[in-house]
């Protein structure tokens, strides 16, 4: 009886401690919604033929629901802000536990990074990921020198100082979430035309690092093993950090392994992207209007080149997608 009481006391305080962890962790529902992208995937009720993986250049530039509407293909974007290549790999591994798509489209922008960059971006991506071996590996691969693994297990260790910054959002979304993205696409209808960018910075080396090739190889072999087609892309960002040397190396890699590679910046004009109206940050990312054009073009390309199914005539799937489209359009109108 004495021990039972102690166990009950411990249980009571453990619950309090867990609740505090949940309360103090940012909810990413109204502010900084980029932190809600990883876990939005778990609410998906169907499989997809195409999975996009990559950084902000995928979640801002490709709208799966626009693709469905124009070409009938089903897709999902598993992208996060500054998602590094090892993060893409582990997120892809996790995704493949839930579904086996026909095609995986990987945006190669993250080949530029060879080490963990920012704790803040790590948090946005990892905080709400479900616990799995992939998450453990992802944390270990991603954490910066100042971070420790335990703070991902116990978010209170990272966010305890939020105790004085709690808002209504923290209580409102304590046990629930709301829709912030549409099949992984983050709507942004702001317009900020391209004016100019800083001059290209010269770098000490333009060689992709071994770690980038290592993870690109891992992505490739993982997909090969599962019979999934890998497609490499470079999203149409105007910012001058994708150097010619990078382009040459990625083309060589694609050619060596017989992988299709599309640099969408080089064909942005023919797609009809106008950097006066189709970007929300002066050419770094596309806004909704640009994403609509790009999605239409790329959806048709994927459907044609990879023989993907048009589900618009499939009663069951079209019913799900039509509901998604209604929600999506409602969000577009209210945005």
């Amino acid at each position, binding site marked *: 009886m004495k021990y039972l009481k102690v166990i009950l*006391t411990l249980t009571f305080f453990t619950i309090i401690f867990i609740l*505090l962890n949940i309360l103090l962790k940012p909810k990413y529902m109204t502010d900084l919604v980029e932190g809600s992208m990883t876990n939005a995937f778990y609410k998906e009720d169907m499989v997809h033929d195409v999975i996009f993986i990559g950084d902000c250049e995928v979640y801002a530039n490709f709208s799966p629901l626009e693709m469905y509407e124009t070409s009938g293909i089903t897709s999902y974007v598993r992208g996060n802000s500054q998602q590094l290549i090892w993060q893409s790999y582990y997120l892809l591994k996790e995704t493949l536990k839930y579904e086996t798509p026909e095609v995986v489209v990987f945006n190669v922008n993250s080949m530029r990074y060879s080490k963990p960059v920012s704790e803040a971006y790590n948090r946005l991506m990892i905080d709400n990921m479900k616990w799995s071996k992939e998450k453990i590996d992802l944390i270990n691969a991603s954490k910066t020198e100042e*971070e420790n693994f335990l703070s991902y297990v116990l978010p209170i260790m990272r966010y305890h*100082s939020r105790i004085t910054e709690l808002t209504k959002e923290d209580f409102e979304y304590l046990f629930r979430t709301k829709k912030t993205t549409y099949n992984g696409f983050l709507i942004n209808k702001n317009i900020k035309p391209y004016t100019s960018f800083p001059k290209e910075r010269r770098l000490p080396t333009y060689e992709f690092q071994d770690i980038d090739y290592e993870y690109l190889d891992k992505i490739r072999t993982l997909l090969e093993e599962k019979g999934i087609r890998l497609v490499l892309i470079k999203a149409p960002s105007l910012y001058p950090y994708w150097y010619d040397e990078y382009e040459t190396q990625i083309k060589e890699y694609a050619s060596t392994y017989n992988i299709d590679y599309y640099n969408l910046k080089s064909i942005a004009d023919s797609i009809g992207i106008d950097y006066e109206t189709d970007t929300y940050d002066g050419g770094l990312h596309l806004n909704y209007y640009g994403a609509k054009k790009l999605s239409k073009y790329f959806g048709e390309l994927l459907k044609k080149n990879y023989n993907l199914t048009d589900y618009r005539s499939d009663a069951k799937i079209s019913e799900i997608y039509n509901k998604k489209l209604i929600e999506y359009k409602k969000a577009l109108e209210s945005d």
Partner: protein
Amino acid sequence: MLNILLLLLSIIVITTFGLNSLIFISLSAISTYFTGKYLEKHKNKPLLIFIIILNLLPLIFFRFTYLVNKFNILVPIGLSYYTLSVISYIVDVYKNETKSEKNILNYLLYVFYLPYIFIGPISRYKDVSKTMFTKKKFDITNTYKGLLRISWGFFKKYLIASRISLVISSITSNNLVGAYALLACILYSIELYSDFSGGIDMVIGVSNIFGIKLKENFNVPYISETIKEFWGRWHIALSSFLKDYVYIPLGGNRVSKIRNKINIIITFLVSGFWHGTTYILWGLFHGILVCTGNLFKTKNKYINIFITFILTSLLWSFFIWNTSFIEPLKMILSIFTHFNYITLFKNLTEINLTLFNIVVLILSILILTIYDLKQEKINNKISNLSPVLKTSLLCITVILVFTLGVYGIGFNHSEFIYSKF
């Protein structure tokens, strides 16, 4: 069996701080173990002095930063603590105050014992051997006592010391003087006490769980009425080591008055040097204040406590601005020459003293003060609590530390101020 596991764990953890730590500690342990056995039977004073000097050499060498930088050697972990532990052992054996340890594994555990190697307290073989080498068995009372003591240490470290460190680092990094320097000195008194005694609480708590009894290192130091009394209540392990192995061998108080004062000054200079070369002046000032005895003492107990607190606080400036001898003196001088006290109160948030931080700090210090003053009574009450209430108290402290503590990115939260000495 548990002792062997403790020893192995200690060796493994110490090795992670560099192989040189393992080598230095092992050399110290082995040299004193065998010499101790020999000296027990053959009273050879030159050998005793030789082995003491041999063990002191690394401590002296590593106190000179420029030498360390020149030879680019990592300072062995726990150097200041294990050196004094082995010296106390060898001297005590020589003086027949304790018997030499027969079991080398026991002796290695005494030297390597992980909990106290980082922050102390400096242990004496004759004290710890009574409980350290006995057969260990699980004891729920000791476990509760240990866990509560550990959580109390965390409370002091993360709610008080780390919170104050934010303020002090803001003052020092912005080169603020005058009222800010005074505030830094006063707050540092509390930070150092909370940090150091918090760390010692953790060490004593862990040892409690293993049934190992360590001596207390603090006895409410800031209620001292004189500096001499302060040294009987602050860092007791070091003070008593210096008393037994430096002050008394120099003649202690059984000499002329002048010689006695010189002995006191020498002892405090050694204390300063033990902390590092930039602390020698701090030691000298403390020595002078002890020598001057009752110069600042009034008839009012509370005024005496206040004066002693202010004096020790001002001298902590040697710990805050510890890059040179001159800087602390400049800062103390600025307190009397820069009258920016109103500016300080107007800009509290700029030095991280937000309303929230002030409230948490005041409440935490209040809890600490009440506990310190009523320690015995409170400890008795806690030990008589039911397991459910003890568990609740433990859980509440842990939750408070996790929620209101200052730690995380930007803080080296595993480092204690006294672990660098």
